[in-house]
């Protein structure tokens, strides 16, 4: 009986902090973004003050941490999203459940599900599309032009290359082990964009990496995408450290959202990765300096 009492008090006490939806004056349009790259684009287009909520994949820029989180984009809560009183929800085709999205539309929330972008081309299309959705066509055009210039330079270098270097992408997420970025992944798409081949293209999807497979992959360059900074420690992976590519500095360890989100920072990612490829190692600095003009 005492336990029931405790349960009751808890239940009755809850309304006090429940349902605390923000009631600030709605601006021209209230936006919920349910995708990390979409959120980045919204910030890049300067509409962050219209953003009233994001999903848990939105981690950049740091300001997003102050926004209410509506959970994971594959398990969007109807009431949760609705409680933020959004005018529109911008997300991708990965969003689920279907029913939540349909219901949001039924009560007048404009739901846009953008295609998943996995190439520079698609990234540009996505920026343009979002620009139209939030009435920032000009800003979107400027951003795409800047990105396009970088993409063109990268393309030139790819064309000039005689052979495609092979790159190994490792994903460090969670406390234990790392995964190979195999074919049919964002990592693979990223490598295509810099004209490299995947050192583990025989693996499909992200699969746990074995030490032996790391040695046998013997890539020309190594990319480690961390889901949080400092997660990957090379001391744990002597097999990787002894690879010629690692020894010779053809390596990059960095934020997985920067590398794999195909958002406004894609150009930055491509330049970084292009910079670690063996045959373009020297050209990297010129490209970085020419980026500005």
């Amino acid at each position, binding site marked *: 009986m005492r336990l029931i009492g405790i349960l009751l008090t808890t239940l009755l006490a809850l309304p006090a902090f429940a*349902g605390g939806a923000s009631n600030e004056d709605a601006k021209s349009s209230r936006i919920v973004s349910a995708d990390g790259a979409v959120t980045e684009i919204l910030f890049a287009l300067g509409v962050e003050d219209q953003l009233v909520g994001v999903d848990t994949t939105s981690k950049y820029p740091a300001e997003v941490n102050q926004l209410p989180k509506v959970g994971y984009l*594959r398990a969007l*809560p109807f009431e949760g999203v609705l409680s933020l009183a959004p005018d529109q929800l911008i997300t991708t085709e990965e969003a689920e459940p279907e029913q939540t999205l349909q219901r949001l539309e039924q009560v007048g929330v404009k739901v846009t599900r953008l295609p998943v972008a996995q190439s520079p081309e698609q990234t540009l299309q996505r920026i343009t599309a979002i620009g139209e959705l939030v009435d920032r066509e000009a800003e979107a055009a400027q951003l795409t032009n800047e990105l396009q210039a970088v993409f063109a330079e990268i393309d030139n270098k790819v064309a000039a290359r005689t052979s495609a270097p092979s790159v190994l992408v490792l994903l460090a997420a969670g406390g234990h082990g790392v995964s190979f970025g195999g074919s049919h992944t964002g990592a693979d798409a990223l490598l295509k964009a810099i004209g490299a081949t995947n050192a583990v293209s025989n693996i499909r999807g992200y699969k746990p990496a074995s030490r032996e497979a790391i040695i046998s992959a013997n890539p020309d360059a190594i990319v480690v995408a961390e889901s949080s900074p400092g997660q990957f420690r090379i001391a744990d992976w002597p097999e990787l450290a002894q690879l010629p590519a690692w020894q010779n500095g053809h390596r990059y360890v960095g934020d997985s959202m920067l590398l794999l989100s195909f958002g406004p920072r894609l150009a930055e990612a491509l330049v970084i990765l292009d910079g670690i490829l063996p045959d373009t190692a020297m050209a990297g600095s010129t490209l970085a300096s020419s980026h500005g003009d």
Partner: protein
Amino acid sequence: MAIDTAKRAPASLIFMVLAALAMLAALFSLTNGAYPLGAKDVVSLLVEPAAAKPAAHMVFFDVRMPRLILGFLTGAVLAVSGTLLQGLFRNPLADPGLIGVSGGAALAAVSVIVLGGSWLSGWAVLTGRWALPLAAFIGSVLTTLLAWRIASRSGSIAVATLLLAGIAINAVAGALTGLLTFYADDGELRSLTFWSMGSLGHASWEDLKIAGPWMLLALLLAPLLAKPLDAFALGESVAGHLGFSVQWVKGATVLLSALGTGAAVAVTGLIGFVGLVVPHLLRQIVGAGHRILIPASALAGGVLLVAADSLARVVVAPAELPIGLMMSLLGGPFFLVLLMRLRIGA
């Protein structure tokens, strides 16, 4: 009078308390959530439905209402199945998971999530939106039947073998689930992780329409097993001496549990602990007699799940915690405290 005399509240009082708790949980659940729709708004919504914002209307009638009913039915069916199976196996640690229900449902669900685009695309096309719940339901019932089949020898069922078969089938189903998990991509992985943590977040009237009848069937027929299960507490042979058809009781118990739990798991994902904790706790309060225990379990299970779901949707609003996670978070420590108190008492 001796100190060991069972101190029990009268059944009528217990049912009144449970009914009152059910009302409270229902009211709380209908008036709380991420969306600002409190008791006052609900009243005005009910008085004058036409004047309400469409969003509020939808939140109340199409989200919170079906969610409340589905939550209550699911909690009730899980608790009652736990009670039935604990009675059948004469073991307070039995729950629907033991006869392969959850293992089979999980394997089927993961199959649909991972293979829905390839090998099982025919199934996905055929069943559409119901691909996953239907598969989970069939999976849970099939694994239970398989366990039953393995345990039956010339028309009679060895209960201990049924238990072992369930455990073995769970292990195999778990391994196959793991294998599929290995081939899953990132998104699929997240989907199946969320499925295995259970959720009432997508509850809809359609869910209720397909799963509700099975759950109701199990709940309405379960009380018929009260007397035979009391007899089973003295062992299978004594139940037979008392005139109960032992095979029939075993079959009915397993079938009802599998149908009810299978239907619940199909639309909500895996929700643990209700089936284990509720009967165990209630036995301390209302005694072991199934005539009271079964309906009390139904009420208490429903209340527990509705309350936990209400918490799950407000503690991290506007996001939601998976209900299965919530149950284990609340139920695990609670159960431990209960066990420790029992030990000290003994």
